[in-house]
């Protein structure tokens, strides 16, 4: 009976997890690029892989793509160990990306598509569709050399998604992109996700992650130091600080009777920040201001940015 339940649980669990990284270690000489990394990636999520330069993100991504193999540990895709045909289900936009300068845009993307196993009969309708969507129809017979940087990046993006992969991996996708194209690619990533693709988004720029990713993992010096949903992690790392803005100044004297500390009063904007031991004290402060007849313009809990969390987590 117990065994049966476990089996059922296992089946449900496998179905939910698309990528499972289990105790993966990769060493270059005496240097640990990845040191016993464990990650579970749920299907249909946008997953942020965060860490400073040199933390081991690209090493991990290369192992998922079977460019290199782990020294120890396993990586499972859809419940199975990585195999030759796994790469057809993965789309990868590397940080170091480029194209053959002397090939035409269309033959270039065609070449990448064939490498990713797109069948000949589906290839051309798919190319037409994508070139149309990204406004490259009139440029498809031009050599890569003759295209603007923005167009080249769009072409690379097309090459990444052309085989309609289940898992998309973007390594620093916005490096070198102007704001217009950054936004375009960001919207595309979200759209791909809504259609069911699971996405790994690797970056060292934390601020980009907060608006896109549902779940993140923090990697530092090859070790996975944190994993969870963005809101859970923020809850874990919050310091119970609140922000209150009213239409009148508050003085330290007004706040004397409350059990609050680390108070910062800013008279220019009629706002204060304070830390509390319990949520209840924050409510009392709020009630006091309301009872005094002041208007509440803003009141919220101050959550740490991922950047702050990262610095704190690394320090720990």
């Amino acid at each position, binding site marked *: 009976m117990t065994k049966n339940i476990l089996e059922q649980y296992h089946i449900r669990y496998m179905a939910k997890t698309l990528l499972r990284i289990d105790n993966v270690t990769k060493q270059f000489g005496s240097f640990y690029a990845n040191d016993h990394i464990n990650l579970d990636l749920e299907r249909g999520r946008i997953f942020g892989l965060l860490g400073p330069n040199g933390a081991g993100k690209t090493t991990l991504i290369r192992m998922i793509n079977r460019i290199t193999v782990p020294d120890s540990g396993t990586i499972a895709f859809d419940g199975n160990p990585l195999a030759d045909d796994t*790469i057809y289900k993965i789309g*990868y936009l590397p940080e*170091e990306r*480029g*194209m053959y300068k002397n*090939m035409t845009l269309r033959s270039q993307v065609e070449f990448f598509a064939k*490498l990713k196993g797109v069948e000949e009969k589906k290839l051309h309708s798919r190319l037409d569709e994508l070139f149309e969507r990204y406004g490259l129809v009139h440029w498809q017979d031009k050599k890569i050399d003759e295209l603007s940087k923005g167009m080249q990046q769009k072409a690379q993006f097309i090459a990444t998604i052309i085989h309609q992969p289940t898992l998309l991996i973007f390594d620093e996708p916005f490096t070198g992109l102007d704001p217009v194209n950054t936004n375009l690619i960001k919207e595309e990533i979200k759209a791909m996700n809504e259609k069911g693709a699971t996405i790994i988004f690797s970056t060292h720029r934390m601020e980009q992650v907060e608006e896109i990713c549902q779940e993140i993992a923090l990697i530092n010096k090859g070790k996975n130091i944190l994993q969870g949903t963005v809101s859970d992690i923020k809850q874990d790392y919050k310091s119970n600080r609140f922000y209150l803005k009213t239409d009148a100044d508050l003085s330290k004297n007004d706040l004397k009777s409350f059990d609050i500390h680390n108070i910062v009063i800013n008279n220019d904007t009629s706002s204060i920040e304070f830390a509390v031991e319990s949520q209840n004290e924050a409510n009392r402060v709020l009630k006091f201001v309301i009872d005094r007849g002041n208007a509440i313009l803003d009141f919220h809990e101050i959550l740490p940015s991922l950047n702050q969390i990262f610095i704190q987590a690394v320090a720990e």
Partner: protein
Amino acid sequence: MSNFFSKTILIFSREYNTRVRNKWFLITTFLVPLGIIAVMAISGFASYQAAQSGDQRNVIIFDEADVVSQQYPRIDSYTFEQENSALIEGDIQSLIYDQEFDIVIDIPVEALDLNNVELTVYSRPGISLQNELIIQSFLRGEILNYKIQEAEFSAEQIQVLQTQVSLQRQSITQDGESQQDTGFVSYALGYGSGIIIYFSLFLYGTMVMRGVIEEKSNRVVEIIVSSVKPIHLMMGKILGIAAVSLTQLLIWIVTVSIIGLIYFQIPFFNELSPFSLDQALDAFMEANVLGFLVYLPLYYLGGYLLYSSLFAAVGSTVENEKDSQALVLPITIPIILSFVLMFSVLENPDSILAIGLSIFPFTSPIIMMARLPFSVPLWQLLISIVLLYTSFYLLTLLAARIYRIGILMYGKKPSPKEILKWMGVRV
């Protein structure tokens, strides 16, 4: 396995198609035969010009004793005249400058008594006496005949004295088989094939290296190795460029043959040619042409494969061509060495050195070509070819180890020690 083939074929066909359609390929492929036509036409035209109007040489021989018969040697643009009197020293100036004789030869009677006959030839300063050797041997024959006649030999005795000497090479193998050695054409074929292999090793080896460096510095390589194993990428590239080089070689052979055939059809060239089309074809058939048709492609390909995997490995360790020089040097040394040693092998094709170098895989592609005209035993050819292709296989495995790590390393140039580590050597 089928995956290996389909991926390698994809890389191969991209490599082949983009290179064959490249304008530089078209330019070099068709420029070389055009260059050959141009050189042939220019040299043909030059000698035609010389024959037509060019340096006419009027020769006068002062032949007091009537030594010289009227059968002068046939030399283009030379005319001979004879004066059966002694040359008067005071006349020489007027002979040359007033009567416009270019060359004045004096055969004084007294000289004919000596064994060593020294004759004086007078001419204007700055006139080179081309065909000097022909004139010299003509006069030697005439003087010899004169002396024989003077000695009053009988006609039979004279016939006995007349002797022609020509050399025919015959070589004996260890098993006692004797075969006629091939002549000039096969010598030229061996020499030419050696040079073709020498240049293609450099040309296409560096083409492979440049391709690898381009992919790496372009950063296109990471996208490709996420769907293809590095060894497939490397082999696809090497084989693709091999196909390009064979295409080019084939075009050259075909066009040069066509040009050659046309050459003999044009009367203008035909007249000038020292031999006829039939003679040329006979010479080719007599030479070991069939042997070259088998062994040239085998060594051409084997040598290319062996060296290009090394060039690919070097290319993978650097990000631009400049940095590759120090590492390319050790690869090119055996190529250059084979080329230099080819000449001494042609002199002495059965020496221990020649045999050794034609079996050693790094020198065999060029050296064996030089030995091929001189009847190489089959066992030596077999050992040499098996060694060449086996070392290609083993070396490719080693090169692939460097390659798969090298192509993903950016920044610092790896030290030789690090490269050895990539190959799996403990240092």
